[in-house]
């Protein structure tokens, strides 16, 4: 079996509050594994410890107890960061750099240089659709553009793992959709993704597996399909049914042991409707 992309073992993080005796337990005895190729969604209300967990995995914050690994390498080592890209929550990058300069800077930090770095920068700008903004300073970028340059920055050294902290927070629906599509694209290419988000609908669309944190404790964990499918119900969507057909089906259901729980027109999501009306980037 291959090495897990992320291993978290009995992780606890207690933050001291300066000048006070009390402490905040941000994460408590958390254990989970993210397998290569998975898109893992970490869910939970604000303050439940999602960002803290991610920062510990990336070695930015030291755990109080427990251990985390990236592809088998201890998070406390600098080497563990070779194969991971990170997009923090509400990131700001250097406003005085242009999009292309930003990617070149992060590329150099990963040991890239010369023609290879130029090539990679161009590739990434095309990937996130920012070729036209490549020579503009980030000070003038919109929130959605910043998130996309952030994703490109995370991908600069072609890591096998991406850690994304609320990648669509504060982005308008069209931008949010673009970011979702990018993540799906990464998934297709076999990149493992750990993300947290409040937009449950999007999480549902892209995640294979989820974990739910509540006050630092992992309360539920598993494959998304298994967690949310309702075991004893089946859904059937008909196109252009005649009233007679519907009456017949209802009669058949009445004769059997089953029961019609709900009947009505399926609704498109508000997101889809919004994108249709505004002509967003929806296909």
């Amino acid at each position: 079996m291959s090495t897990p992309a992320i291993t978290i073992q009995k992780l606890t993080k207690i933050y001291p509050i300066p000048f006070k005796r009390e402490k905040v337990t941000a994460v408590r005895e958390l254990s989970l594994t993210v397998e290569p190729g998975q898109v893992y969604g970490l869910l939970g209300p604000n303050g439940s410890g999602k960002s803290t967990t991610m920062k510990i995995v990336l070695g930015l914050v030291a755990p109080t107890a427990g251990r985390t690994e990236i592809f088998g390498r201890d998070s406390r080592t600098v080497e563990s960061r070779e194969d991971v890209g990170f997009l923090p929550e509400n990131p700001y990058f250097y406003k005085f750099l242009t999009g292309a300069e930003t990617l070149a800077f992060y590329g150099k930090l990963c040991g890239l240089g010369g023609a290879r770095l130029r090539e990679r920068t161009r590739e990434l700008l095309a990937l996130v659709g920012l070729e036209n903004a490549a020579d503009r300073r980030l000070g003038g970028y919109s929130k959605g553009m910043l998130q996309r340059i952030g994703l490109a920055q995370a991908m600069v050294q072609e890591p096998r793992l991406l850690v994304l902290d609320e990648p669509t927070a504060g982005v308008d629906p069209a931008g949010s959709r673009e970011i979702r599509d990018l993540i799906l694209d990464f998934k297709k290419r076999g990149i493992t993704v750990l993300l947290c988000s409040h937009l449950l609908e999007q999480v549902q669309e892209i995640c294979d597996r989820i974990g739910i944190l509540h006050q630092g404790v992992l309360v539920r964990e598993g494959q998304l399909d298994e967690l949310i499918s309702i075991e004893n119900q089946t859904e059937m969507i008909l196109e252009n049914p005649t009233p007679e057909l519907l009456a017949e089906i209802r009669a058949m259901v009445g004769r059997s042991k089953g029961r019609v729980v709900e009947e009505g027109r399926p609704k498109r999501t508000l997101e889809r409707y919004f994108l249709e009306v505004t002509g967003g980037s929806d296909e």
Partner: protein
Amino acid sequence: MTAATQHKTFSLARVFAIASNTLLELVRLKVFYFLLCFALLFIAVSLATSTLTFQEQFHSMKSMALGGMSMFTLLLAVLSTAMIIPKDIEERTLYTILAKPVPRFEYLLGKLGGVLAMLLVAMALMIPMLVLVLYVKEQSSLAAASRSLAPGPDRDAALEQIRLAAFSADLIPGLIIIYLKAAVCASLTLLVSTFATSSIFTIIVSCMVIICGYVQHFAREHALGAVAVGTVSVMNFLVKGVTILAMLMIPDLWAFDILDDATGALPLDLFAQTASLGGVYIAAYFLIGYLIFAGKEL
């Protein structure tokens, strides 16, 4: 798909990337130009000072211009260093950098390198101004002396005096010391910013330490004098301990103000001694700063 290159425990390329980015950040900052214009103006205005004899004019002009340069590089060092790390923390750019395979040591070294490079740029812009001002003054003084004095050995002597008092290579060690003093203050400010939570706190603490650095010379003599005539041994011990601690933590900036003599020149041995003191301070503050930063909760 695997990492193409073996991870290097120390990479000069990464430090260089961070340093040049920091330099770019500082040079694209408005405060840099503001301070620099002010410094250039100050040096130019020192030209207008004209009193007493030609030689004395040069002295007052030189010490004013050099004093101005020294003060502005110091201000530039403290103000710009104080903002870089707190800003990276506040805007979370630090997360994106340290989430790459970048050791914290390299990050800090790159930041210091960027500030030192920026100070070099500032010096490189101020020195030509200084040379120009001294040259203009030299020419006008020579002309005035030629006009007012009758030809003869007296005039030749006066002209020679003026030439000696104008810009010469003797000034170079003094300029290096001015740079080093600013570099010591930058390194100190970097150390403060590793445990501070904001730029403003960093600036206040650093300025306080720097002011103490100017007066520690007197305090030290006073404290050691008190020890010599002291009667209670515990008191002696305490005073000595505090003095030594203060001496270690607070730079002896007085030692860097050694240009007040007439020509602005500097004996070579004094220069070497002061320069190495500066080097030791810079390295020591950087290393203490690193020790704090390495364990810092981000």
